[in-house]
């Protein structure tokens, strides 16, 4: 493989990312799957990088999940998004940062619609005014939260306490990166590196010392299409997509999977357990599965945050073997104690997937 060919493409697909003063909007479901991620993002931006980032207590879901399930009509979604922008404008901010990839895709889609059909934008402004009395400005800069971590990856590397290196062998960790579909597949020019060879996560892994693994089904969707996943009868199709990816990456022996979407890490983390139950097949070394991380968790790890503050105890595939490889210290006793020190409960033991208790 000739990496120079990829570098040319990475250079062609760059985009402007604002320096500071961000308006952050959270994901509707992400905090249930990975409770530490968004808190970690805010902590890194405020404390490690000294940036100004705010969020509004009245912001809602972008309704992308409903739109993609054919439940919420496009007009409603556009009006809700207009309200989100109004909250940003009222707070005096111009740089919009969504936490979720589906949201990011939704915002781009809506802005693109308004760009090509100004009469629709006018109508949405009227609808918003009628419903809430609010007015909005379109953001000057709209990027995904992972783009910001990408932009400051060198600064994070400088402040990091750990590198993505296996301390027993001295080798860089082999990490598979997976980009959420809505990051670049719809609007390739709005993704760093474009749609075919996205660079936003590759850049993080390489800057922090790891080795990126490319494999045949890298571009394949993980299967988290709301229309499929939400209905139990269709879930076989969803899990088959993730399984295809696991089977494809297996020969490359990845040591971790890095993602930037809410649904993808959820799938990769939980489906390994489901596949192990259904088919007696586990991935990763020694039946322990391949640990799955979000970009905030990885950033928090290299910066030396406590793994339990990052929410790693909620992962179904154990992250402890990876922490041991890097040398990140953790207190197993505190794993199932909440922030207030009280016991939060332990999961049951899986039949095939080896889980650390």
């Amino acid at each position, binding site marked *: *493989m000739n990496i*120079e*060919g*990829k570098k040319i493409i990475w250079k062609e697909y760059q985009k402007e990312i604002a320096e500071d003063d961000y308006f952050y909007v959270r994901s509707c479901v992400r905090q249930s799957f990975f409770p530490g991620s968004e808190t970690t993002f805010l902590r890194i931006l405020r404390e490690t990088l000294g940036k100004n980032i705010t969020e509004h207590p009245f912001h809602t879901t972008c309704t992308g999940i409903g739109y993609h399930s054919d439940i919420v009509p496009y007009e409603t979604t556009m009006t809700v998004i207009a309200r989100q922008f109004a909250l940003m404008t009222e707070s005096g901010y111009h740089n919009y940062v969504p936490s979720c990839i589906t949201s990011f895709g939704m915002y781009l889609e809506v802005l693109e619609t308004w760009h090509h059909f100004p009469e629709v934008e006018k109508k949405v402004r009227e609808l918003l005014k009628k419903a809430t009395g609010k007015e909005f400005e379109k953001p000057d800069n709209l990027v995904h939260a992972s783009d910001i971590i990408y932009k400051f990856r060198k600064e994070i590397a400088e402040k990091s306490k750990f590198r993505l290196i296996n301390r027993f062998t001295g080798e860089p960790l082999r990490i598979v990166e997976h980009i959420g579909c809505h990051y670049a597949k719809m609007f390739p020019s709005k993704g760093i590196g474009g749609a*075919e*060879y996205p660079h936003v996560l590759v850049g993080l892994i390489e800057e922090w010392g790891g080795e990126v693994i490319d*494999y*045949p089904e890298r571009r394949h969707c993980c299967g988290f299409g709301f229309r499929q996943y939400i209905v139990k009868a269709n879930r076989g199709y969803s899990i088959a997509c993730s399984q295809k990816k696991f089977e494809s990456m297996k020969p*490359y022996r990845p040591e971790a999977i890095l993602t930037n979407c809410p649904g993808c890490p959820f799938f990769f983390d939980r489906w390994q357990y489901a596949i192990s139950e259904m088919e007696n097949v586990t991935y990763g070394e020694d039946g322990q599965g391949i640990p799955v991380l979000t970009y905030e968790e990885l950033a928090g790890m290299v910066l030396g945050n406590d793994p339990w503050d990052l929410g790693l105890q909620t992962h179904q595939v154990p992250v402890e073997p990876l922490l041991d490889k890097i040398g990140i210290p953790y207190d197993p006793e505190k794993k199932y104690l909440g922030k207030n020190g009280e016991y939060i409960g332990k999961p049951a033991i899986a039949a095939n997937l080896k889980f650390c208790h």
Partner: protein
Amino acid sequence: MMEKKVAIIGGGVAGLEAASSLAAFGIEVTLIEKEDQLGGHVGQWDRLFPSRRPAKEITGYLTEKLSEKVSILTSTEVKKIERSGNAWNILLNNSRIIVADALLLATGFDLFEARKKEEYGYGIYDNVITSADLEKKFALEGKIRNAQGKVPERVGFVHCVGSRDEKVGNLYCSRVCCVTAVKQAVEVSEMITGCEVFCFYMDLRMFGLDFEALYKEAQEKWGVHFIRGRLSEAFENQDGSVLVKVEDTLAGRPLKMKVDLLVLMSGMVISSGTKELVDLLGLETDENRFLQPADRQLKANETGIPGLFLAGTCTSPKSIDETIADARAACIRIMAYLNQSAVSSQ
């Protein structure tokens, strides 16, 4: 026709044919070519469809015909072109000025830059090459090895790379790639006994008289497999082989297979030399960005500008026999113009 002068920009098949045809009528011709060799793309080719005759037969014939009346300027570029009265003043990069009564543009095509089809991995995956790369292997090496130095057991050909593709802005068909793919498929089968060859196509454009026979020979004699389905993405496996994903449209199911070498049939696009002349002369191009003649059927070699003529692939993709015929047709129009006879369209 004594003492009339014609300047031809472009020393490929069209320029060479026009030069010798005009010179045969006593016209003084200056042939300007920016590369250090004449012959254009055909000069880089090994064998030509459909008969698989050596390309040197064509370029040899065309260059030998050039008489002393043709003044050949290779490694020469055009910097500026100006009109003074009925004459063309052409300033070259060596500061020489050529004065001509008529100017013929035969600046040809460039091959589509295959790396623009990012998902095919040209320039990234070692075993993805273009048809031109393969032809060079035939011409210069006389053998085919993949990037790992092994003899390929399976070779795939991808039709329509950079053609009929809205994503790269080329809606047109490049005409000659289908028959070239079949020709190269036969050549690979001939060179490597037991090699399995696959052509991944959308349509098979076997428009020339002997092209269908070549297609049948490819299937019957050489066992070339034709799969109707366009390549969606390629990937490099750990052993360097290329994973191909197409739909077998006739079976109605997606198909994956691995090949040791993947050949992309790059189409034709307007050449960089032609683009420069568009700027210098204010020429019209059509929506495919090729030069637009005054009338594609009736005045295919003329522009709206008196004394300026077009020949060859700078106006549209053409095969060699079509290019030669087109160059000869341009000569008739040029001579009519120089003669200012009733035949002249100006």
